[in-house]
Structures are given as structure tokens and as C-alpha cells.
């Protein structure tokens, strides 16, 4: 570093928010790859362009996914990051850890990698950022030894994620971490060995607040809900009112279907009009709770823009009971995966395939009958197929 001017990235050590540059520098003191990464960062800042080459196929024996190959386009300048591959490590559902497990992970990564990580990547994995081709297998073996396994990458089921669920949330209508752990174990083969047209994401949120953004980001979206009426503790409602909480403005007026009424004494709900959006419960958690007949709404098709545009998941199964061993959801998932695998084009997400060949064909293949809950409204156009 001595021969360089004051690097541009030094400025990013200033300011109140914790600095990732400080983190890279901490490792750079003893790890040559981390030191070279600082050089790469500086070069990118100067030239305003990435200096990583396009992909590269690397992996560990027996798997096709879980490792992202990464090579520098300036290996002569930065030999220690000439190859700088990422390993995606499947996190425990709900992102809970013992320090014992975390320390073991740190020790493995100290030995075999750059010592730089993400807790966590956007999909949810622990990201081990940067190692050499030679170290991949030994690092993987060491990870298995301490009880961790790789997550997904490429055309496979990506690492499924769950919100905190009933572990520490009273809103949870399904056991999201348990469902996700169960599905992750069920689909180990599909997570580790890419065989699908493109990625496939599974996410479960305990309620419609959707803390893992399942509706926006998962091809297969599981969101907790209830069939009966939400529970109201009128005494607790009175407590809110007594404390000066403006029930009418903050809660009743914001109900999307006008299902609530507050006369100053009692909070009344028309359960048939409630669409279980969670707003009132969010605002008055001490007084309002989800109903007791709980299960999940299954939605399909969420994804980011590439390539036909961004999709939000839409309703596929309005209500499904979610109890171990989750047979119904597993069967549905297998059916969807097979149909998509059979019909999808290269790099075609399941939503794009459904849009291309029609939801009606998908529903027929799944054996699911159309119901009004799947759409906001029926079609307006007269261009109807009767095949």
C-alpha cells in the first residue's frame, strides 16, 4: 500500500455507520487475499467498472451448486485474488446461532478463505467471500465436519428461508422455521444439484407482514393466515383507548375493507369482510391477535425483473393446513418442479413459463380448480380459449 496515494476507500472509514472497509482492513492485516481486495476496490473506484471476470465453473465433489466461481481480470496486479470464489453456506432456519457454531465457522474460514463474510447474503445464506480453487474441497469438508452444508446456486432450488416465526413472534400463523427446515432437508438433492431451467426460490413468512419478502422474491411463497375471526381482547382495547391511543384514526380508518368499527367502547369486526392484512394487529398487538384456525396461503411466481419484468407472487392455494410432515405442500412442490422442468425454457422462471403458456394449463397440470381468490377480477377481453 505504501507506494499508493491515499486510497479513495479510506473516506469510507469515516461517518457513524459501521464501515465495511474497516472490516476488510482488519482481515488485510493478516490475510493477503483481503489485502488485495482493497486494491481491487480502489481500482474499481478509479475506473468505475467491475474487475471480476464472468463466472467460471468450480465446485465441490458431488455438487453442482453452492459455489460461485470468481476470477479477477487483473491477476497480475492482485495475485492473491486471482481466484476468489464464494461459498454459500446454508443458514439455520430463522438465522439463530449458538456462538459455538459461529466460532467454528470463523475458524474454518480463517484457515481456508479470506476471512471475509456476509451475514447474510440477500437470499439468506452465510456468504463466505473469497477462496481459491485449491481450497474449495478442503473447506467444504471442514464445513461438513462442523455440521454445515452448502446452499443453492444456479438452476436449482435456492436456499429456502423463513422469518423468525413462532420462535419469537406472536403473529406467526404457521411454524415458518420448521417448515423451511423440513423442506430444506427434503429437497437436499434439488438444492445441491442444479437440473432446472433457472433458479427456484422458496420462502415462508408467518403472517402477511411477510418479513422475508416472500411475496416479492419467492417462486413458491408460503404465508401464514387464518380462516376464522381474529381475536379481540376488549379489555386490552380499552387500555389502549385509556392511554390516548387514537383507535379510529390509526386503526379503524386504515382498515382496507372497512371491516372494523369503534364506538368508543367496543371494537367490532365483520369477520366476513376482514382480508387479514395485519394492520390492526400490528398497531394493537396487546389487544388483537390472529384467529385460531391457522394455516397458509400458497402463492406462486414472485421474482425480480430479469427478464420479462418483476412479478409478485399470486394466490395459488388460498388455504392449506400446515402440519408436519407437510406432505401436501411437498407434493405440490414436486408437481410444480416437474412441470416447470418439463416445459420451461432455459432461464425461464416458473412465473414466466406460466405466463407464456397460460395459467389455465398450469392449474390443469396441478389438478387445482380455479377459484375467485386467485384473481382480483375476471378478464375484460373476449379472447378466450376453449381447448
Amino acid at each position: 500500500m505504501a507506494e499508493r496515494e491515499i486510497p479513495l476507500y479510506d473516506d469510507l472509514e469515516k461517518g457513524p455507520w459501521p464501515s465495511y472497509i474497516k472490516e476488510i482492513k482488519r482481515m488485510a492485516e493478516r490475510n493477503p487475499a483481503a489485502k488485495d481486495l482493497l486494491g481491487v476496490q480502489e481500482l474499481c473506484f478509479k475506473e468505475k467498472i467491475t474487475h471480476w471476470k464472468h463466472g467460471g465453473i468450480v465446485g465441490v465433489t458431488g455438487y453442482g451448486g453452492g459455489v460461485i466461481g470468481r476470477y479477477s481480470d487483473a491477476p497480475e496486479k492482485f495475485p492473491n485474488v486471482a481466484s476468489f470464489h464464494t461459498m454459500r453456506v446454508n443458514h439455520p432456519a430463522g438465522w439463530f446461532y449458538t456462538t459455538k457454531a459461529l466460532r467454528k465457522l470463523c475458524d474454518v474460514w480463517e484457515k481456508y478463505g479470506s476471512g471475509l463474510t456476509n451475514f447474510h447474503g440477500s437470499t439468506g445464506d452465510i456468504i463466505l467471500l473469497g477462496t481459491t480453487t485449491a481450497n474449495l474441497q478442503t473447506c467444504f469438508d471442514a464445513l461438513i465436519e462442523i455440521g454445515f452444508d452448502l446452499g443453492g446456486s444456479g438452476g436449482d432450488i435456492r436456499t429456502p428461508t423463513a422469518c423468525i416465526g413462532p420462535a419469537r413472534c406472536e403473529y406467526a400463523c404457521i411454524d415458518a422455521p420448521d417448515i423451511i427446515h423440513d423442506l430444506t432437508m427434503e429437497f437436499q438433492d434439488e438444492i445441491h444439484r442444479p437440473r432446472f431451467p433457472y433458479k427456484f426460490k422458496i420462502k415462508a413468512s408467518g403472517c402477511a407482514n411477510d418479513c422475508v419478502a416472500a411475496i416479492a422474491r419467492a417462486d413458491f411463497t408460503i404465508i401464514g393466515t387464518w380462516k376464522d375471526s381474529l381475536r379481540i381482547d376488549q379489555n386490552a382495547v380499552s387500555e389502549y383507548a385509556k392511554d390516548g391511543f387514537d383507535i379510529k384514526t390509526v386503526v379503524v380508518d386504515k382498515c382496507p375493507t372497512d371491516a372494523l368499527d369503534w364506538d368508543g367502547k367496543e371494537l367490532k369486526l365483520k369477520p366476513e369482510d376482514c382480508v387479514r392484512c395485519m394492520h390492526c394487529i400490528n398497531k394493537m398487538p396487546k389487544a388483537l391477535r390472529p384467529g385460531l384456525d391457522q394455516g397458509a396461503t400458497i402463492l406462486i411466481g414472485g421474482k425480480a425483473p430479469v427478464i420479462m419484468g418483476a412479478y409478485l407472487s399470486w394466490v395459488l392455494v388460498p388455504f392449506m393446513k400446515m402440519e408436519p410432515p407437510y406432505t401436501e405442500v411437498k407434493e405440490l412442490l414436486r408437481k410444480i418442479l416437474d412441470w416447470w422442468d418439463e416445459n420451461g425454457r432455459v432461464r425461464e422462471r416458473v412465473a414466466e413459463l406460466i405466463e407464456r403458456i397460460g395459467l389455465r394449463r398450469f392449474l390443469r397440470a396441478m389438478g387445482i380448480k380455479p377459484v375467485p381468490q386467485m384473481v382480483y377480477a375476471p378478464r375484460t377481453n373476449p379472447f378466450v380459449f376453449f381447448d
Partner: protein
Amino acid sequence: MVKTDIGPPNYKLMLPEVITENYGKWKYHEILRPGVLRHVSETGDEVYTVRAGSPKLVSIDFVRDICDIADKYCDGHLRFTSRYNIEFMTPDKDKVEPIIEAVKKLGLPVGGTGNSISNIVHTQGWVHCHSAATDASPLVKAIMDELYDHFTNMKLPAKLRIAIACCINMCGAVHCSDLAVVGVHTKVPKVDHENLPKWCEIPTTMASCPTGAIRRHPDPTIKSVTIIEERCMYCANCFTVCPALPIADSEGDGVAIYAGGKVSNARRPPMFSRLIVPYLPNNPPRWPEMVAVIKKVVDIYAKNARQGERVGEWIERVGWEKFFQLTEIPFTEQHIDDYTVRSAVPGTFRTTTQFRW
């Protein structure tokens, strides 16, 4: 022979005792102050949570530091949120202050709860990605330095979620965030005729283009492709399929800003983010032009939105014309949607959990 397919550790073995004992029994929670939660169980048990922001890209030393705190105050347990925040949990109220002190000693902010700006979900950028049109971590750092107080207090009308993606692949819920920054290319890929025949399959490359801009090279002796420039909207899908079509460009690459998206089904169904600034140049290390727009929109939202309104709900109420008037962001032809490949399917499909039985 090493085992494979063992899967992740069972999360049940990672839970603190108070969580195991009250799993599924939680009755209600309250936010005691920014970054501090109290959950109360049907059993009468309580758990206090201290939430701290982290920079996502961290060293193993950082992980060991937070483990030290968890060992000292949380019986050796901690968790992360879906937005890279760290949560320290304890049933003992008296440990809350010492945890906060220890967290602050590490230089980490306590907050990210309720009507705050929580940690920014983001991607790798120039630190680790080949398709990045911009960086990610420094943009986060620059924005959060500027909006730091909104992490540590809860004075906004509602929660405000920010996401950053270094290209339009959008690894992160950029398409459904209150405010989002996304790396964009603005120049057509340069065809590397020498390497294209070696690296790429021509039919697959042509098929990768959603607007049909990639054509077989007219000279049959050249085994390559040409690009109809006016049809290219710089999505880089072709580059993903064919490395001989590099699209990154020092001058052309930059960032776009989107606003008004949300994921939660509360009140209004989930909403997509919409384009507010089509292009700003990459200006490392702190992208001041981008930060200024984000800051301005947050300030104007904070001043004008009603209590409880997310950014998108506020804009929907006052109207986009008012939004552009208030923010003084120029409205351009790029704001008008002319990407016609996409049909209107999600227009009728029910993209929310809101429905009647």
C-alpha cells in the same frame, strides 16, 4: 469419504432456552425504545431483544466480537434478521443496558425497529460481482451515514425500507422497496467477434434478448452476432448468457432510483417500486448525487406523509404529479413505460394475501 447433503444445522439446536420454552406461546410485544423489543409469553416469561445494525460485509473478527457479547450476556446465542441486523436476546431485563453498551463499544448502532429506516438490503457490487453496474457496500455506507439518525430513532411516519442492487438482476427486494437504488447500464454491449464463436452459442445468445435486438452477423463467414442498437434496453441478459458481449462501461454505467414499493400486505397490497430518477453517474467513493436524492425524498416524505403511511401509500394519496413537484425531480421520457414485451398478467392475478373466504 466425506458426507454430503447433511443440510443446515437444525435451528432448534440454535435457540436460546427462553425461546425454546416459549416457542409458539408468545402473546404480544412492545418496542421499549428504538432497537429494544420486549416479547411477553402466555407463560409469563419475557424476552428482551437488542437489535444492532451491521455492515453485512464483515470479517470473522467482527463475528467473534459479537459472539463475545452473546457469550457474556445471552448464554451464547444470537440471531440475525432478514436485513442483516444482529439481535441479542435475554430474559433478564437488567442485561439490556450492558448489551447496548457493549454493542455501542463495537461502534454498532442500536435501532432499526418500528418507524425507522432499517438496514439496507444490498448486493455485492464491485467487491465481488462480474455483472455489477455499480458498487453496493459504499452506497449503503454513504446513505446510512447521512440517514443514521433514522436508524436510531423512530420518527418517520412509517417504516422505510431501502434496497440497493448493483444491476437489474436485483438480488434483493429492490422491486418492492420504499426507496431503491439499482445499477444500470446505458450503453449497448460491445460484441467481441474474436471470442464470441469460442465462448458462446449463437442461437442461445440471440434467444436471450427479450427485445430481439441480437441478430446473426450478416456476413456468413463471421460466426458472430450484431446488435440492433435502438432495440437494446441494456438489461445484460445476453452478457449473462454470453461473456463475449461485455456491457459494463466506465462512462455509461450509473444508478437509477426507484420509490414507493412495499412487501407487506398490511393495509394496501404489496406494491412495486417505480422509477423516480432514471440515471445518475457512478461517483465513488460516496455517490453524492444519489445520496442527495435519497435524503431529499426521505425529508419530504417525513414532512408530508400522514402517520402510518408508507412512501408508496403517501405518493398514491397525493399523486405522482405532486411527488415530482415536491421533490423537484425532473420528469423525463424515461419515466414513461414503453417496455411492451411484458403482458399485463399480474394486473388481474391476485398478488396479495388479501381476499375473502
